[in-house]
């Protein structure tokens, strides 16, 4: 059959060009693969969920609790279909797998990015793939956010209300942009069809296109090689070929990984739409975004209120907290390949301890993200009596700025110690080697 196909499609050329791609053997190189597999599982479970989901916020009678004829119990169709999905065989499991897989996809992408950052793999010639990776991270977050609006329970309703408000807070164009993005003044009649379109067509399309570009560029440029490859065969590509050695490893990985997520989903439920009920006027005492957006949420909570009028537009704390501040953070991440450059093309992953400033800056950045995420729990910190209204902002700001600075210098110190010990060891080894002669 190979021959038959080869005569017609020249698959041997495909084989030579793509299927023989060498994969370095190191566990940290599985992180990107896990992200990719999560995306595939998300698409499959997403298709199954879309088959039963009703993208509409028109009111329908809740068939599980119809009320009376005179006073029917009306709920949005989207919410109703979420209830129906929960009631259908394996339906709740599908929602759980989709939900946990999305969390794991973002987590794997973040850790994958950490591997790239700490080993300097973003340097020339791989800057473009760092930027595409950044876009993937941003669009994955947007896809996740639009995803948890779709069940349209009270939690989702309040979430999308805040997102609408954030869009609207953009000076000058915000009002128009929010109405255009969310189908009219909140809550527009078409808000759920609009978000459904984003979540199942627009954003996955962008994600797939970017993923394709990410893969092709990676195949073209080859992986950065782990350090062992340098000792094994200098400036040669070392690794196992995709076909057939890497493929069974990948298959094992995807089956084991998906199995684990399914097992996890069987025991850990997701956000219960029944508990929150359909959109209502009921205030939710504590509402939080998913963990990877908690830092933006924390920043919003500790930026004090202000409004500046500039040329007819209003610059508000909300705009600064939810747009400008995350914009600066994203810009800093985009700028990484321009801040830490190499003149020559990079072949080998760098040892993080040989680049202490980059390592320390990365750790400081992560510490800041964690402190801001903790600041997202400001309400609980105040209501629990740990902080007071008067001192909460000051303390959280000091920690947000102070802890990263402390960890920056701590990392520099520790790395210096490690290197001193290592150099001492090398000197000793050298001295003893000479003594043996």
């Amino acid at each position, binding site marked *: 059959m190979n021959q038959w196909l080869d005569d017609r499609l020249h698959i041997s050329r495909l084989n030579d060009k793509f299927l023989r791609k060498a994969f370095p053997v190191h566990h940290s190189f599985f992180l990107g693969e896990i992200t990719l597999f999560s995306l595939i599982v998300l698409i499959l479970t997403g298709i199954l969920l879309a088959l039963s989901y009703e993208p509409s916020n028109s009111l329908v009678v809740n068939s599980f609790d119809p009320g009376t004829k005179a006073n029917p119990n009306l709920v949005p169709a989207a919410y109703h279909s979420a209830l129906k999905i929960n009631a259908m065989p394996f339906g709740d499991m599908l929602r759980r797998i989709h939900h946990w897989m999305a969390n794991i996809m973002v987590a794997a992408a973040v850790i994958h990015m950490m591997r790239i950052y700490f080993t300097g793999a973003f340097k020339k010639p791989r800057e473009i793939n760092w930027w595409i990776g950044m876009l993937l991270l941003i669009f994955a977050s947007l896809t996740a956010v639009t995803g948890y609006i779709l069940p349209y329970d009270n939690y989702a309703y*309040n979430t999308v*209300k*805040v997102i*609408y*408000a*954030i869009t*609207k807070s953009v000076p000058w164009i915000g009002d*128009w942009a929010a*109405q*255009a*993005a969310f*189908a*009219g*003044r*909140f*809550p*527009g*009649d*078409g808000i759920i069809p609009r978000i459904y379109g984003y979540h199942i067509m627009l954003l996955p399309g962008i994600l797939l296109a970017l993923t394709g570009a990410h893969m092709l560029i990676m195949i073209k440029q080859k992986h950065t090689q782990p350090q062992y490859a340098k000792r094994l065969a200098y400036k040669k590509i070392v690794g196992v070929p995709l076909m057939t050695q890497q493929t069974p490893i990948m298959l094992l990985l995807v089956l084991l990984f998906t199995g684990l997520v399914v097992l996890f989903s069987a025991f850990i439920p997701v956000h219960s739409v029944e508990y929150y*009920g359909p959109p*209502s*006027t*009921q*205030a*939710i*005492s*504590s*509402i939080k975004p998913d963990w990877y957006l908690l830092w933006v*949420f924390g920043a*919003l*909570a*500790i*930026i*004090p*209120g*202000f*409004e500046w*009028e500039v040329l007819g537009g*209003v610059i*508000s*704390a*909300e705009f600064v*907290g939810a747009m400008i501040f995350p914009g600066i953070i994203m810009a800093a991440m985009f700028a990484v390949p321009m801040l830490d450059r190499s003149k020559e093309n990079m072949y080998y992953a760098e040892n993080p301890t040989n680049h202490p400033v980059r390592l320390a800056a990365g750790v400081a950045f992560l510490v800041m993200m964690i402190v801001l995420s903790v600041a997202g729990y*400001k*309400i609980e910190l*105040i*209501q629990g009596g740990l902080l007071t*209204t*008067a001192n*909460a902002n000051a303390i959280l700001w000091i920690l947000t700025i102070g802890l990263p600075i402390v960890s920056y210098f701590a990392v520099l110190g520790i790395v210096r110690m490690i290197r001193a010990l290592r150099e001492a060891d090398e000197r000793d080894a050298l001295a003893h080697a000479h003594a043996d002669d």
Partner: protein
Amino acid sequence: MTRYKKQDPEITRRKFINAALGAGAAVGTVSLVTTLGAAKPAFRLTPDKAPPQPGDILVHADASKEGQPIKMSELSEQGVSAWPMGKDKDGNNVIRKAEPNNQLAVFRFEKDRFKAPEEGGHAHVVLELDGITDQGVVVYSSICTHAGCPVPNDPNDATKLFCGCHSGQYDLLQGCKVIGGPPPRSMPQVPVEMKGDQLVLKDTFVTAPFGFLNEADWETYLEQVKEILG
């Protein structure tokens, strides 16, 4: 030979193709952007989207009792969610709930506990003591001026509100003045009076509620509402 002599064209082939491509791209972009404009539906103001009007009756917003007038016996320091209910042109009752930012909260304190908002901090704090009934019933917008979440009572101090979204805090006894967190403005009061056994609004929001850039923006909107709904 003259038969084969080439005339110099007025523009080169490359120039022509570039110009054609540019024109095509421009026309295409403009038409696509125009289509994008259709993403924003027109806004039509209907009585159920209008802001609270003088004469509106306060009715329950909670799903189980929606539309029933709020009674004095149901009120306490814990806020009761309410919608303003007015009339449309034909005199039918209209609950103004199509605009979620019309959500109000009704509280009751002893009347002498209210005090004029202290100066400092945030501008635009207005507490109309006339708008609090003799029994101490006060009505505020329920929507946080920061990101538009409905704000519940602070579990540790019922005279305060504590927003579950970004930790905005308000003082109910001082005109819902901001006392903590990121909100830029106080949540506006809606003056009310007792008529029979119903709570009736005397006015709309005394300052700009959530969703408006500033007082001027809010005033303009009120005028538009008056014009459209008469």
